[in-house]
């Protein structure tokens, strides 16, 4: 086409593709956390019971270890990680405190319905230093949630239970419809876990948190059925450019 002859260039010349909305959300959260000072660490999706459970103080009797909750492979010698926490264990074993690590990726549990899938994504973080407190954990969580949902969002902390943190909390945000929605889990790293990673728990303490990416993506994009993310439907994917 010749612009010199007065023929204008037209729009829609190039179609761009799009990142998968789950990966986009994961990247956004991880970039945010990196800006806070966290370093990204990586780990395998096929894990040992030692890293996925034992090192995290998840006892043999814990329901999560049952065959109806966890996918085991290779005649139960390994498993598909049920959370990204084993990556934090690897991070703590490799680095010396103070350390601030995050990991993100796929995790697997034996669920399948409109709000749960056998494969989903998490981002988790851990910060180990001297004198880390629950009050500091709260500050970090407020910063994360304000960055994700804006500073007008109302949030609350509820006592909860995770074997790897003590005290433990779950954090809810208040939806526009006035419903409290669970958004993340967090807590002070259980000293047993620090000791398992050869970190002196008398000298150091830590905070940890974990977010389910699909949950946040569903809220941010207004998607009600988690399965939409994994149909690979171009009519769906093209909406997130």
């Amino acid at each position, binding site marked *: 086409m010749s612009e010199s002859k007065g023929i204008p260039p*037209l*729009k829609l010349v190039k179609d761009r593709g799009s990142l998968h909305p789950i990966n986009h959300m994961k990247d956004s959260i991880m970039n945010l956390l990196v800006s806070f000072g966290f370093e990204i660490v990586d780990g395998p999706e096929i894990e040992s019971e030692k890293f996925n459970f034992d090192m995290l103080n998840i006892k043999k009797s814990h329901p999560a270890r049952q065959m109806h909750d966890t996918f085991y492979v290779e005649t139960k010698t390994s498993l598909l990680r049920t959370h990204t926490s084993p990556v934090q264990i690897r991070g703590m074993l490799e680095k010396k405190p103070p350390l601030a690590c995050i990991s993100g990726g796929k995790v697997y549990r034996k669920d399948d319905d409109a709000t749960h899938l056998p494969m989903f994504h998490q981002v988790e973080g851990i910060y180990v230093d001297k004198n880390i407190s629950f009050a500091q954990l709260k500050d970090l969580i407020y910063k994360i949630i304000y960055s994700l949902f804006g500073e007008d969002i109302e949030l609350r902390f509820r006592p909860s239970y995770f074997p790897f943190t003590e005290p433990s909390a779950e954090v809810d945000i208040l939806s526009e419809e006035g419903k409290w929605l669970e958004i993340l889990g967090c807590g002070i790293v259980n000293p047993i876990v620090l000791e398992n990673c050869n970190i002196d728990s008398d000298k150091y303490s830590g905070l940890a948190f974990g977010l389910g990416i699909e949950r946040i993506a569903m809220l941010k994009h207004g998607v009600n059925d988690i399965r939409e993310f994994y149909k*690979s439907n171009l009519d769906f994917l093209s909406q997130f450019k």
Partner: protein
Amino acid sequence: MKIAYSHLVQYMPENPTIEQISDSLFQLGHEHEIEDNIFDMEFTPNRGDCLSIKGLLRDLAVFYSIDFNQEIYNERINELNIDFENQSEKICPKISFLKLEIDKVPELYKKSLEDYFSDLNLSKNNFFSDVSNYLSYETGQPTHCYAADTINEKLIFHEIEKQEEFETLLDKKITLKDKNAVFSLNNKVINLAGIMGGKSTACSAHTKIVLVECAYFKPEAIIGKSVKYDIKSDASHKFERGVDQDSQDKVLRRFIQVVSEHANIKEMSIVSYNYKENQGIKIPVNVNKIKQIIGININENDYLNYLTKLGFAIEENFVKVPSFRSDIKTQNDLAEEVARVIGYDNISRSEINIPKNENRNYKDIENKLRYFLLDYGFYEVINSPFVGVSSKEAIKVDNPLDSNRAFLRTNLTDSLVENLLFNERRQKDSVKLFEISDIYSSENGIHKKRMLSIIASGKVGLNYQDFSKKIDKKYLTAMFQEILPNEVFDFQILSRDSLDTKIKSEIIALEVNIERFSAEILSYKEASQSPESFAQFNPISDLPSSTKDISYSIKDFSKIRELENLFLSYQSDIVKNIFIFDYFYNEKAQEVKIGFRIVFQSKETTLTAAQIELVYNDLIDQSLKIDGILIPGI
């Protein structure tokens, strides 16, 4: 677990409202919903001690005065002579039995027992089982009632590993497999310990002599059994979370008390076997550690006062953990108790400053690759790793959710082929997808590879530059040469012969280890950017779409922009997409040809030809109002 508000508040002299109790429970970490004055509680797995009226009141005692002194039978009881052998003392370190005989089975229940069934809408079974169920609700300790006359041989508790048929007292027949902790009589299982008793020794409406078993079972021996055998029981829920090892005598004496309020007891005897004394846990009083963990100021008196209200004892500068709190072992556990009482939301934030991290080049190559593919119209997908097709090196899932998908994929391309066909069936004539993921294989150990897979078929793009071009190896090779001019990638043409499709266009695929891409690609300047906001999802229509084209001939080039704007801003509920598929300057004729493709699709109904014509003709009418615009043939 369901707990009636009225059953709690009767022991709370301050008479708090249901909303006040609800707020207190949330602060303490006890999630629940309320329906018809019933709390539907969901306790965390470490708080098995709260699974009763008594347990919940113990926690609420930190906020309210509690008057819960249930009468128990306090007189001396004869020792029961029972032929019992515990062959698995590690699983059951303490067990007690009570045998009692009543003169007559009561027809009516006293108020507290009656209210339990009516308020919670529960079915009654028989007198002794009803008392047992009520006491589990009141005290948190499950008991099991045998019709005493059926226990006529040596009763053995043991963990066995054999296949055996077992019928529960609720008539469910199961086959016991692998290891199970059971009670046996005459070498036959009569009770699946901690889960449910058997039909052969169950009490009936006529039972007057009962043998009550009250035990502590290690949670490890019970957990998972109710799911395995599909038996939902209150007992298993409690034993899995741990019961109070030291409560058995009180519970059985309370059993006697409740029975005595309903019938005359003719005879009773009791015995307790304690194989391992519960030592109890003591933690040094260290308020400074608590302050450091929570990040608050609290004085020692307040700290100890909170713990005392929760049932902890303070002995010589040690905190003695009560027997019902098997979850408390460390200073961090005590810190959580204090934080719960203060209220997590009442703990002020304290600014955190994490030292800045310099290592920021994580997966830069992979990310650059993703944006490069976006620039060429590729969409990123994420697929499930579970597949049905096994290859020699595929890793098998021991317990798949779907037996037809019992392996982990060893390539990404097969998933992308499915994605491609899915979109082609939805009338997409240009499909370009990619996925980056780890894949695993198991030859001589588990091996991980991080792979990029791309697949493409159909038109290069939905725009006038690319619409007439077909995706082929040449196109993709040229595309990749832009970032890696010296690399030769082995693009594959996938055969459609075995695929369920009538479409003929070539499928081009590439699967390559991410390690093939060097830092050379980091100099690529991408045009695509990460979205700045999070777009709101617009529900997708699954109804069929139709397309119609309009082609124009324009000699007054100044009108081109007006025509383009008309189409691009056109709004209709049934127009899904409009793009320019043709834009051609005929120098000889001194005219521009411009073609628009309109994609029609409704979210509510399959469109009729008439509905489409209506919108199509409207577009034509509006466009022809622009001077100098012609549609050849009209």
